[in-house]
């Protein structure tokens, strides 16, 4: 029942780890007066093993996309660090930073927005290869075709000369995935990869990501707001609230035995298709997610929490407790 230094996999050298990670955005008035900071990521710790598939789940504004961009090296952490294969991202510069970018693939939320409209699929996929110095045109062509086949845009010839607007949403997302994979990264970060897609296409894309992750032994960080889509596509879930990870556990354990009051509320709010839903009200905690500019003191969830204990939850930050095996939850209820 003690707090542990990191969420998760300790037995194996992690591929990527975050330690005490904070990414704040400073707010200034008239360009120079500091008026505060948006604490988008505010003390996140985790370690992902090579070949592991995890999901970061949370509502909009919980900091999950900022976390993704910090892992990608697009934001510099305000405090703490990200370590990839034993090296701190902060130390990487020039060539080493460029090499890191090839190690990490990124799948964006909106496939149409992520693809340049005036480039055809061949050119879109050639771009990362050119940037990373694959000079031989035949070699590029071979890798582009292989990438298209891998995301099941087959036969590749049928897609090479297509422009993004000629493809359906699902096909566009496959091109985005192919682009993310073409430099053979060791880590793939997918930020809401299916939220813009139709129900019948979602499952295909999720299956594809999971399949590729297993085949290649990739580490996959899958970011989503929708807990109902994670069960079959990740091994571990991290639940985020107001810039922090409040609970983490293996998928089934988290979905079947949620420990943190926020996770419990989130699960209770999600409907599975059932005609009986129409006749009963759902339990929803009062209030709204807090402002990241002025987050509540101590436990961020305490103003909305049904189990709020005055003098504790609003005074002292809850550490990570381990109420079940391999299951961490930052809540004073477990003390």
């Amino acid at each position: 029942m003690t707090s542990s230094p990191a969420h998760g996999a300790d037995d194996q050298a992690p591929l990527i780890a975050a330690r005490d990670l904070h990414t704040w955005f400073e707010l200034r008035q008239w360009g120079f007066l500091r008026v505060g900071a948006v604490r988008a990521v505010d003390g996140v710790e985790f370690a992902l093993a090579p070949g592991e598939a995890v999901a970061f789940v949370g509502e909009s504004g919980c900091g999950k996309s900022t976390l993704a961009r910090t892992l990608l090296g697009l934001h510099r952490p305000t405090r703490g660090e990200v370590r990839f294969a034993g090296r701190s991202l902060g130390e990487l510069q020039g060539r080493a930073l460029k090499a890191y970018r090839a190690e990490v693939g990124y799948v964006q939320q909106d496939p149409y927005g992520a693809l340049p409209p005036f480039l055809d699929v061949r050119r879109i996929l050639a771009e990362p290869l050119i940037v990373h110095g694959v000079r031989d045109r035949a070699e590029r062509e071979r890798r582009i075709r292989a990438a298209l086949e891998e995301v099941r845009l087959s036969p590749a010839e049928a897609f090479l000369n297509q422009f993004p607007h000629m493809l359906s949403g699902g096909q566009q997302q496959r091109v985005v995935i192919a682009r993310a994979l073409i430099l053979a990264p060791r880590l793939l970060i997918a930020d809401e990869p299916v939220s813009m897609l139709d129900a019948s296409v979602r499952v295909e894309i999720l299956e594809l990501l999971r399949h590729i992750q297993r085949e290649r032994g990739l580490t996959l960080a899958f970011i989503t707001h929708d807990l109902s889509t994670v069960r079959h596509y990740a091994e571990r879930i991290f639940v985020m609230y107001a810039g922090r990870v409040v609970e983490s556990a293996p998928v089934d354990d988290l979905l079947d035995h949620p420990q943190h009051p926020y996770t419990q509320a989130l699960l209770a709010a999600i409907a599975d298709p059932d005609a009986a839903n129409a006749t009963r009200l759902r339990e929803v905690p009062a209030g709204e997610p807090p402002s990241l500019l002025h987050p509540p003191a101590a436990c961020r969830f305490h103003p909305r929490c049904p189990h709020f204990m005055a003098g504790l939850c609003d005074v002292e930050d809850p550490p990570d407790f381990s109420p079940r095996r391999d299951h961490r939850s930052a809540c004073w209820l477990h003390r």
Partner: protein
Amino acid sequence: MRDRTLLRVEGLELHYQTRQGAVHAVDGVSFDLHRQEALVVLGESGCGKSSLAKALMRLLPRNVHHTAGRVTLDGVDVTALPDERFRREVQWSRLALVMQASMNALNPVVRVGEQVAEPLRVLRGWPRGKALARAAEVFELVGVSTDFLARYPFELSGGMRQRAVLAMALVAEPALVILDEPTSALDVLTQASIMNALKRVKRELGTSFILITHDVATSSELGDRVALMYAGQLVEVADAERFFTEPAHPYSRMLMASVPRLRQRARPEAIPGEPPSLAAPPGGCRYAERCPYRFARCAQDPPAFRLGERHRARCWLHADDAPAGGGA
């Protein structure tokens, strides 16, 4: 006693003119809706469900080149009304629409309360004070504190703004409110509390709803009836109870199987293929290309077979002489 049927839609068609030719967005849609009933129009993007809402509200874009069919509201054939009378007598006062992302359509420089009260002042000529008092009542009903009446839209969160728009649609007490993806841009918890508000409104005001959504789970939160739309047509219309347990159309069954569920271990199954283009819909059954049960007859357009009192499915498997095995 008044007729139980509030809305009857018969053979509704709406075709757009585009550079690729005519797009058959709504192509022969018929259904009816009882008083105090909520009908969900469920369908994937591009199936024509938002066009259906626009056709019912007569909010048609300029490139419409063909409309047909009859819409009867409360026994009155509203399709026969001239535009001006429709606007004065039906739009907003008896038939209101909450459009997708309409929370972003609030006027940023007018206080929220004034905007919510506006329909009463314009349509009914109510004085400002009376209209604002009524707006305050509706605010409470949809779960917004009346403190927000005097605020501007930017001071409200997305969920609060969506509730304000809902209040605006409800303030003139229309018999029917059409909701086009009312929660799809919102967070899980906000979504659940807005669905709660809708359930309360339905119970307390007796409003009828048409809820348009692509999300199967959301659809079960409000619907007494479900109409599943595919490529411009309704492929199945059924009671929610029946639809969620024993759907009759192959597309309904496959769509249900493709939904990831939180509380089930069964793995969701994707539907192979893509929906057809509405510019050149295939002849015959529009789902045939993706359907594992297809047989020779699917080359002809299936009629809507009647399977129960208020249950219809557009599939040849339900013809009396269909081959055994595939039917529900």
